[in-house]
Structure formats: C-alpha cells, structure tokens
C-alpha cells in the first residue's frame, strides 16, 4: 500500500548513555562556560530537590514532586529561554523557574502551602506552576496568540508530562498552534510514568513527538537525559518560533527516578530492576563524564561546586523557614481587584477567626 504522506520523527542525541560522543556537536558547544553552567545547574537542581524531599520527610514541607533524573529538561529550558519570553510551567519545573529568576525559596513556599510561593520573581509574566494536568497548554496557546497578535518577537514555552498528552487540552492546543502558526514551544517531559500508569498504557503511538504531525507542526524527540540535546532542541525551537513564527513540539525522553510525589510509593507498581537500568542513564553522571573527557571539568571544580550547592541550599532553606507569615486576610484580599462590599463582613470574620486559632496555638501569647 502506498501512503499519500510519509512522516518521520527526528531523534536528537549527542551524548550516549555513557556520556560518549560519536557525532559532531552543535556549534554553541564551543562555549565551554555554557557547558559548565548546564552541568552546575543540574547539580544545583538535584541538591535542592533532594533537600525538598528531606524537608517533606521531616514534616517541614507539604507533598512535593521530585525532579530527580529530569534535571536536564528543566535546566535546558531555563537557560535557553530569553528573559522576556513566557514560561507556562507544570508542577515539575522547579529549576526552570529558578533559572528564570524565581527565588528558590519560593519553590519551597509553594509546596509548603503558601500562595506567595508561585511568585516567579524576575520573569513576572510567567505563569504559576499548573496542577490540573494539561490545562496549562491552552493558556500557553493564548499567551502565544497575544504575542502573535501584537507582532512581538517573544516566545511562549509550555511544559507538560507524558500523561498530559492524553487530555484533549494537549491536542487542542497543538492543533491551534498549527492552524494559527503560534510562537509556541511545547516541551513534554516524558518521564515515562504518570503516577502508576506507564507510557504504554497512555498511548499506542511509537512516540509522543509524532502527535505534532497530526497538528501540522514540527515534532522532535530528544534524549531527555542528554542535556546538550535538550538544550539544542529547545534553542532551535525557540529560534524558529521567534524568527519564523513556527510552533514546535519537543518530546524529551527522561525518566522519573523518584516516586511521583512524596505522597506516592512507586515500589507498589514499578520494578526495581527497571529503576536500576534508568539510574545508569541519568543525565548528571553522563554529562560529568563528557566534561571530564574534554578536560572541561576536574575534581577541584566538582568539590567547589558541591560546597557551593550545599551552601546555596542551606541559605534557601533558611530563607524559607524564616519567611514571615502572611496576613490571614490574604486568603480573600486577592480574590478580586477590589473587595466587593458583599465580602467585607467575611473579611473581618477571617481576621477574627485567625486570632482565635492563633490563641489556641499559643495559649500564653
């Protein structure tokens, strides 16, 4: 049978699972500092992430979704975007948000149960992390529409998980991006699990990138544990959106080395052997090997980096724990631009109730 159309999905990988290279590297990799920065930020991401898990385990943080093993995706996004682009993140994008200027303690505040934790700091048009799966994709398509209507050269980048690709929101947004040629980059962090549901129960397609084809846009699959490949793909897609107003989809194939969140126990549904296989392919060790081989990294640098990350994270935790409590009325003050008269009484009741609760907590005070 002869098809009318034939499609192929490019797969991008520079570093193999051992960190060896046998293909020519992209030109930007001659910037050694850039390579070092990619590495340093992945290590920082992991240090902060493991600290967050520890804080949850000791009752100092709420439920937290670890990014263990997926550092290359967040770091590549965070470093490839321009300041005035807009990031529409999901809940597993801590390091991307931090690299765009979010004070890292805000990540802890958010998962510690405070709305203020969604403040992105620098990139003030970025969206807060999105919890209802896939809904962020249409917001991103809307942000990109605004950019297009105003003829701007900015780009919107939105992230989601592999599970999110099963929701209509995903395909609807991709479809629109194609029809309207939006300056939109969609990055799927395909960590191969949606809580306990493995990818093969999410889709019968050979790749997630090929979903782009049905929307008439470019789709690329990259090795999500190869930070050079992810950075390169994201950069290329951002450029294409910026200069040619062409949307694209990137599927970064990573792996969730952690539980889904601290509330989950992956040992109930995931084979330890599978986990071991993927530990051998994780992004940081692989990239470190590459940098060592090229002479871009050494023991002294590694030691200094580890110390720096520990200090940074300690300072972040201190800032988190020291954050002053917000006024109780904040729970209603941001509901509307102006508090409707109908809610004034409730606002007062909120203040009174908080006092009663405070009194119960600190009977002496």
């Amino acid at each position, binding site marked *: 049978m002869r098809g009318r159309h034939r499609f192929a999905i490019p797969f991008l990988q520079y570093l193999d699972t051992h960190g060896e290279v046998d293909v020519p590297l992209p030109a930007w990799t001659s910037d050694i500092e850039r390579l070092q920065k990619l590495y340093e930020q992945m290590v920082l991401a992991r240090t902060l992430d493991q600290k967050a898990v520890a804080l949850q385990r000791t009752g100092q943080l709420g439920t937290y979704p670890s990014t263990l093993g997926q550092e290359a995706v967040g770091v590549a996004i965070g470093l490839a975007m321009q300041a005035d682009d807009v990031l529409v993140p999901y*809940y597993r994008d801590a390091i991307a948000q931090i690299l765009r200027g979010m004070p890292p303690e805000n990540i802890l505040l958010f998962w510690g149960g405070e709305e203020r934790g969604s403040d992105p700091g620098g990139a003030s048009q970025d969206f807060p992390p999105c919890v209802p799966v896939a809904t962020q994709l249409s917001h991103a398509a809307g942000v990109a529409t605004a950019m297009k209507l105003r003829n701007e050269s900015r780009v919107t980048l939105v992230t989601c998980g592999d599970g999110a690709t099963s929701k209509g929101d995903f395909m609807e947004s991709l479809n629109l991006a194609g029809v309207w040629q939006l300056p939109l980059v969609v990055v799927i962090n395909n960590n191969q699990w949606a809580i306990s549901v493995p990818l093969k129960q999410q889709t019968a397609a050979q790749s997630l990138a090929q979903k782009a084809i049905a929307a008439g846009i470019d789709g690329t699959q990259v090795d999500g544990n190869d930070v050079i490949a992810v950075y390169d793909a994201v950069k290329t897609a951002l450029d294409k959106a910026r200069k040619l107003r062409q949307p694209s989809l990137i599927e970064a194939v990573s792996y969730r080395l952690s539980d889904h969140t601290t509330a989950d126990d992956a040992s109930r549904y995931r084979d330890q052997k599978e986990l071991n296989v993927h530990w051998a392919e994780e992004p940081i060790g692989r990239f470190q090997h590459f940098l060592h081989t090229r002479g871009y990294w050494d023991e002294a640098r590694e030691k200094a980096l580890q110390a720096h990350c520990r200090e940074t994270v300690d300072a972040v935790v201190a800032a988190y724990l020291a954050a002053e409590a917000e006024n109780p009325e904040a729970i209603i003050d941001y509901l509307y631009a102006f508090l409707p008269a109908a809610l004034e009484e409730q606002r007062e009741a909120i203040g009174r109730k908080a006092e009663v609760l405070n009194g119960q907590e600190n009977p002496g005070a």
Partner: protein
Amino acid sequence: MNKPGLELSVPDTESVTIAEGTLVEAVTLALRYEMARDDCVVILGEDVGVNGGVFRATEGLQKQFGSNRVLDTPLAEGLIAGISIGMAAQGLKPVAEIQFMGFIFPALEQIACHAARLRNRTRGRLSCPLVIRAPFGGGIRAPEHHSESTEALLAHLPGLRVVVPSSAYKAYGLLLAAIRDPDPVIFLEPKRIYRAQRQRIPNDGQALPLDTCFTLREGTDLTLVSWGAMISECTQVANDLATRGISIELIDVATIKPLDMETIVTSVKKTGRCVIVHEAPRAGGVGADIAAQVNEQAFLELQAPVARVTGFDTIMPYARKEDIYMPNTIDIQSQIEKTLNFS
C-alpha cells in the same frame, strides 16, 4: 456479562464480617462485594489498577477481578466520564474514580450534558447507571486543587444523585446503593475522614437507602444539619453541649441531591431552630437550598432564623491557611449558642 436487572446470587466467600474498618476500607469492601455479586460492575479511572488508587480505595481489586474489570485509563477525566456513559448505556455498571474532586471539571461536560440527561432525552430508552466516585474536601494539607468542596455544582444538576457518606458504615451501605441505583450517582468521599476512625462494617451486602437523611442523634433544642467530614465536628459539638444540658438533633443529609426535606423539616418543626454546617463556600451552597426550604415549610415553627456555618466565599487557601477556611467546632458551637439565644 449479565444483563442489567438479572438477579445474581451472593458469593458466600463475601459473607464475612470485618470487625473494624476505615471509611476508605469500607469503600473497597463495598466495591469488592458488588463486583463479586454483579459482573456488570466495572471499575475505571487513573491509577485504580495496579496501584489500587492513590488513596488505595481500589486496592487489590484488579488482582482479584482482573484487568477487564478494573481498568487503568489514560489520563483524561472527560474521557473517563464519557466512556462510563457509553458503557452504562450498554448495561454495564461503571464505577469511575476521579482522583480528586478538583479534577472533575473536564468530566463535568459529560456529566451535565449527558449522564444526567440520557434517560430523559431518550424518554427512558437508554439509561445511565453509573457511579462517579471522587475524594473531596480539605483539612489534609494537600496541594492546590486537592481540597475543594464543590458538591453544590453537582447538586444543581437535575437528573443526578449526589451522595456523601459520613462514616465507614455509611460509605459501605451508600456505595452499594449507588452502584445498584439505575441512574447516575456522584459519590463524594470525605477524604479527611478516610482513615480517621475504625467502625464495625458488616460485610453483608446490605445497601442503605438513598434519598434519605439519617438522624444520628435525637434532640429537642436545635436541629443541626450537615454531611460528610463535618459530621465529625457536629457530633463532637453535640456531645459537648449535651453535657451542658443542651439537646441537639443531628441530621446527616447523606444524599444532598435530591434532598430529603421531610426528615429535616419534621425535625425543625420539633426543635424550632436549625443550623446547617458545610465545608463548601457559603454563597450558592447546598445549605442555602436547605435553609430556603426550611423557611418555606417550617416558617411558623421557627423560633430563630435558620443559620449556616460554612467555608468562606473564597478560594480554598493552600495548606498553611486552610484551618482559617475550614469550619471548626468553635464556629459551630458559637453559632448554635447564638441561635439558641435568639429572641
């Protein structure tokens, strides 16, 4: 698969009684009982299979009944509700799980436009005997969108039943009733009390009645009306007040759509005073409907205005401030005192 309506024998392996169980275990028990009794019952949802649901409500069911009876779906709530409708129209009895009530919204189109209407628009030719289960409510320090109580949105839709158990025992009997009911039932599980208490559950397959309130304690001074997790706070307050000689009649609404106003009105006619407690925001809450109907039907017997203790009309705050939002025993007791002292 059996045709709907076919009488099935009760498997005797299931006639065991478990002495003590939590609310979430009662849900599992009811599901297991009914799956064994009726092979039209099919469970579907996100993570309900191997993982047994994120709250373990379907623990062990896929292992026992196989992956044709317990289906892990792709991540898509609109799809979960939509296929449940199609399956139900075919005579299956889908029991779908929405992982948290905060994620029911994509399913709402299917629920409102189809599940609630299928019988009516086909004049009874097709029907929709499905159950949609969802954990709901706050108080467990969960992340954003995991703590809301939006039962009023569902209770507003004609054609649905909305059922909220307040204990393990009720969860068992009401869930059996919901599955056996010939129409769509939204079964909202108060997750704050999923594991709060162990209660004796006779695993005898006995359903409790839908469309009826349960009077949990008889009293003469004031009728306290609530449902779900707030029944715990209400019980505590009623017990405390009893030691002071104040006699509270406590009504667990259980089926919040359609409302059994007869039980509530009869009680209020006796006590002359009524306080309604719900965790959901105040405006447009189910409490408003109950209050209106009490006023319509018991106006002359009322000795004080019907009062409500509710959540505030604001977005459910993240964990650190959820206690400010949540109605508590102090809120309930002080409103009861106000209502009792009204003159």
